[in-house]
């Protein structure tokens, strides 16, 4: 439990900074827009319609959508716009915060008795006096309710910014969900909730001060919020320079472990290491190419099918050489080498069930597929590999359901799925007595774990020297065992501990 909470202060600071920046930006956009909308019903229809539409987009998807949008913008302006990290998170959260602010402002302003406004004109108020003496005081309670709602939403939704590479309390939640470390999940949730309640309470205090004409209370609360945000941002000022490196990890245990393994080596080489955990598979390569992360581990087949759009299946060494060439020529990304094991997509079934049904290969599976339920990880059904497999082995399952990796194994165990898109380096395959099916028509490409570094690190000799010993060092048995230490239900290890164990095991 102590371990889980140790990471909270740094992440809470980043979380608060992000949420407050989004809230301030949203206020800057929503207040004038709401003001304008309250006077023009036609404008109100457009602004409220747009803000409502944004709300209907799931926040996770909204965050993810900014990645291609910003990539495109970056391309149009000739580069330099970061597509991952703070910027997409800020923009998505800002859009998300617009609706409650605009709607409450419009409701508040249109709710003011017209007679009161006529009286304000009648006694000879200037437009500025009318605003200050009549409209703002009357609209304040309703508008503040909207701002407080927006603040709570923003702080809650900021946990999702983890998926676009912006550190937040979501790092704890996502890592905890993937490794079933529930104390991490609780630490993340409780901290985010405490942050939301704290900000809401301060905003409530500011409102109370304004309503009871106690200016010191309002200003005190506003200053406290601003001060907390500034304090939260101080670690970022110190940041920067070549000595700070960011290691990326996708959202499963092996990635967390390997990121720590890499990070430990770089720490010993004198670098200050930060982690971006829980990156979506599709954004990770873009992140290293854009320099938002300095290094991460990907799998040959993912780059091959997903980035290079190749459908052929060459021998593994040929494939890795082709990827090395392509990554350097097209994206400037350096490939340090293969780590020595493969983490391929491997269709897995319960051993007894596979024997009873007489299924040993993907060809057998295709024949039996109408009676079977497929469980897949969250992205598998949309990946190029799945299309290639179905071309080679025409199959149609009775049902195909996506799960997060942990729950996918649970689904197979409980019988809710008969076959899953497992990973060959997963320790649970042996532990759960699963069998993996063979691929006689060679539809699945090789998935050698490969270590990729950002363009700016391809000339950093100290950096590369720290990483080279990893090449060819990690065998699949060691990786499975390390993965299982994190994934098992009892006596779980943290990714940090598993990384230290793995380093010792392979003699690093």
């Amino acid at each position, binding site marked *: 439990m102590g371990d889980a909470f140790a990471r909270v202060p740094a992440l809470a600071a980043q979380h608060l900074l992000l949420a407050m920046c989004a809230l301030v930006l949203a206020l800057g956009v929503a207040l004038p827009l709401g003001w304008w909308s309250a006077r023009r019903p036609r404008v109100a229809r457009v602004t409220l319609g747009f803000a409502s539409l944004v709300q209907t987009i799931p926040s996770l998807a909204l965050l993810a959508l900014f990645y291609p949008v910003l990539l495109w913008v970056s391309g149009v302006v000739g580069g330099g716009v970061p597509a991952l990290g703070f910027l997409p998170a800020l923009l998505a959260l800002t859009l998300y915060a617009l609706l409650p602010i605009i709607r409450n402002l419009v409701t508040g302003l249109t709710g003011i008795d017209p*007679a009161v406004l*006529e*009286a304000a*004109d*009648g006694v*000879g108020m200037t437009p500025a006096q009318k605003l200050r003496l009549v409209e703002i005081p009357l609209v304040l309670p309703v508008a503040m309710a909207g701002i407080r709602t927006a603040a709570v939403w923003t702080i809650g939704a900021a946990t999702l910014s983890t998926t676009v590479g912006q550190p937040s309390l979501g790092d704890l939640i996502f890592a905890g969900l993937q490794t079933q470390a529930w104390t991490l999940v609780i630490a993340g949730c409780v901290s985010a909730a405490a942050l939301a309640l704290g900000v809401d309470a301060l905003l409530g205090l500011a409102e109370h001060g304004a309503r009871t004409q106690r200016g010191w209370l309002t200003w005190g609360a506003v200053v406290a919020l601003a001060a907390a945000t500034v304090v939260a941002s101080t670690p970022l000022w110190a940041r920067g320079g070549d000595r700070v490196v960011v290691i990326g990890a996708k959202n499963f245990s092996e990635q967390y472990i390997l990121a720590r393994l890499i990070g430990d080596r770089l720490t010993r080489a004198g670098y200050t290491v930060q982690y971006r955990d829980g990156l979506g598979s599709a954004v990770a390569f873009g992140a290293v190419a854009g320099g938002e992360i300095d290094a991460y581990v990907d799998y040959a087949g993912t780059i091959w099918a997903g980035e290079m759009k190749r459908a052929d299946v060459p021998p593994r060494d040929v494939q890795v050489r082709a990827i090395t060439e392509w990554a350097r020529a097209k994206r400037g990304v350096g490939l340090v080498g293969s780590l020595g094991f493969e983490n391929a997509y491997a269709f897995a079934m319960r051993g007894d069930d596979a024997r009873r049904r007489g299924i040993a290969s993907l060809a057998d599976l295709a024949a039996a597929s109408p009676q079977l339920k497929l469980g897949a990880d969250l992205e598998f059904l949309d990946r190029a590999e799945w299309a290639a497999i179905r071309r080679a082995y025409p199959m149609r399952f009775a049902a195909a359901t996506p799960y997060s990796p942990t729950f996918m194994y649970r689904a197979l165990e409980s019988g809710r799925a008969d076959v899953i898109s497992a990973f060959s380096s997963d320790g649970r395959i042996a532990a759960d007595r699963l069998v993996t099916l063979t691929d006689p028509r060679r539809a699945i490409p090789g998935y050698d774990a490969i270590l990729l570094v950002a363009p700016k690190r391809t000339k950093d000799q100290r950096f590369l020297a720290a990483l080279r010993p990893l090449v060819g060092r990690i065998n699949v048995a060691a990786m499975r065992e390390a993965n299982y230490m994190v994934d098992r239900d009892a006596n779980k290890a943290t990714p940090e501990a598993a990384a230290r164990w793995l380093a010792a095991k392979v003699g690093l």
Partner: protein
Amino acid sequence: MTFERVTKRYADGTVAVDAVSCEIAAGSFVALVGASGSGKSTLLKTVNRLVPPSDGRVLIDGADVSEGPAWQVRRRIGYVFQNVGLFPHLSVAENIALPLKLERRADPARVDALLDTVELPRALGRRMPAELSGGQRQRVGVARALATDPGLLLMDEPFGALDPVTRDALGQAIARLQRERGLTVLMVTHDMAEALLDATRVLVMENGRIAADTSPAALMRGEGGDTAQGLVAVPRAQAERIAALATGGLH
């Protein structure tokens, strides 16, 4: 005060006020009467620029009201209207003092004097508008309109929402104030009895034009034309029926 061919035409082509010209002497109490939609309220609002005329102009003491910022004109004119429009977040005293505050000459003694003028207890100053009765609210509205001691008071159906007793009392109070202070009052009303009893001059409006411009006494003598006499007939007939009731004539 002078109206010079004042016209108000709306974007949809309807003409609310049609080239009205007339002079109003300082110190007179003028009632603007007419049916709903006759343009009386619109004409009144051209004076303090709540409605800008499409054509023509309004002069006060020879100066065109459309010159300079609207708020400057409005601060010299008291304005009372049916819905009162007290500021709900301010106390009665703060409401009354607001016009003074805008002019940066706040004076607590002035608020008490104004409460006296409109015959409200001084203790009411601490109350909020929501705690008052309709009649009290309208008295506060009058006090607010008089705060800066304007020479001209515009009243747009000021007592329309009040019960008859309160209405009569307030009407008499305004008439007395007008006489005592030499105020110029322009009051829109649809109640001919109110106009006859309080005003010194009655303008009857019909379809955006002035159909009759005469004194209450002349109206009672049957002058002013059909429209005006049609309006006068109502209170007169009511009075006769009531009188008959008293002598038992109807039974």
